[in-house]
C-alpha cells in the first residue's frame, strides 16, 4: 500500500497516525507541507529515521525545492518527481491519502 501524507508533522498528527497504521513493507510518500518531516534537524526526523526500518519513505522533490528544503533531505529518504509519484501509485495495489 502507498500512504500519502500532505500535512506538516509539527502542525498535525497525520504523520504519526500514518506511521502507526502502515503495514511493514508499505511505502509512505510525503508531499506538500509533509516534506518538512523528511529534512535534517526537523522535529519529525527521528520518527522518519525509525520508520525506515519497516517502511520505504519517499518525498516529493518539487515540494522540497519549493520550500527551500531540497538540500536538507535525510539520508535514506528517496526523493521523487511527479513521474515518480505516478509510478508509486501505479506500483502499489492501493493508496491512501491521510487527509
Amino acid at each position, binding site marked *: 500500500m502507498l500512504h*500519502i501524507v*500532505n500535512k506538516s508533522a509539527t502542525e498535525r498528527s497525520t504523520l504519526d497516525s500514518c506511521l502507526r497504521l502502515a503495514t511493514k513493507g508499505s511505502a509512505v510518500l510525503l*508531499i*506538500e507541507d509533509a516534506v518538512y518531516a523528511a529534512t535534517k534537524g526537523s522535529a519529525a526526523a527521528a520518527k522518519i529515521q525509525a520508520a525506515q526500518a519497516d517502511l520505504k519513505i519517499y518525498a516529493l522533490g518539487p515540494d522540497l525545492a519549493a520550500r527551500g528544503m531540497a538540500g536538507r533531505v535525510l539520508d535514506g529518504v528517496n526523493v521523487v518527481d*511527479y*513521474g515518480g*509519484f505516478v509510478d508509486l501509485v*501505479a506500483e502499489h495495489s492501493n493508496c491512501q*491519502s491521510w*487527509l
Partner: protein
Amino acid sequence: MQFGILINEGPYNHQASDSAYLFARTAIEKGHKVPRVFFYHDGVNNSTNKSEPPQDDRNVTQRWSKLAEEHGIDLVVCVAAALRRGIKDDILAPGFRISGLGQLVEMGIQYDRLVTFGD
C-alpha cells in the same frame, strides 16, 4: 492504467488542486489515462468561470479546462456540494459538469486507482 482523482479543496487556499493537476498531467504524459476528476467539498470551487487570478499567477480553473479539452477528461462537480456553495451550471468553466456522488463511486469501482487530494 486508469486513475481517478478526487479533489476536496478549492483553488489558491490549498495546494490540493495544484498537486492533483500536476499528478494528472504527468500521469497522462506517462501514457496512463485520467478519465475523470471529481470535485467535492470546497473542491467544487475549482469549477467556476468567475475566477480572475492576477496576471502573474496560474489560473487553476483554466488549467483544468485545457487539460480536459486536450485529453478528454470528465470534470465532475458534486451537485450537493456545489449547490451548498452557490456553484450552478451557468457559471461552470468549459469541461466541467455538475452531477451526483455516484460518479465518484463509479471511479472507485471502474478505475485501477483512486487518488485523493485534500486538506
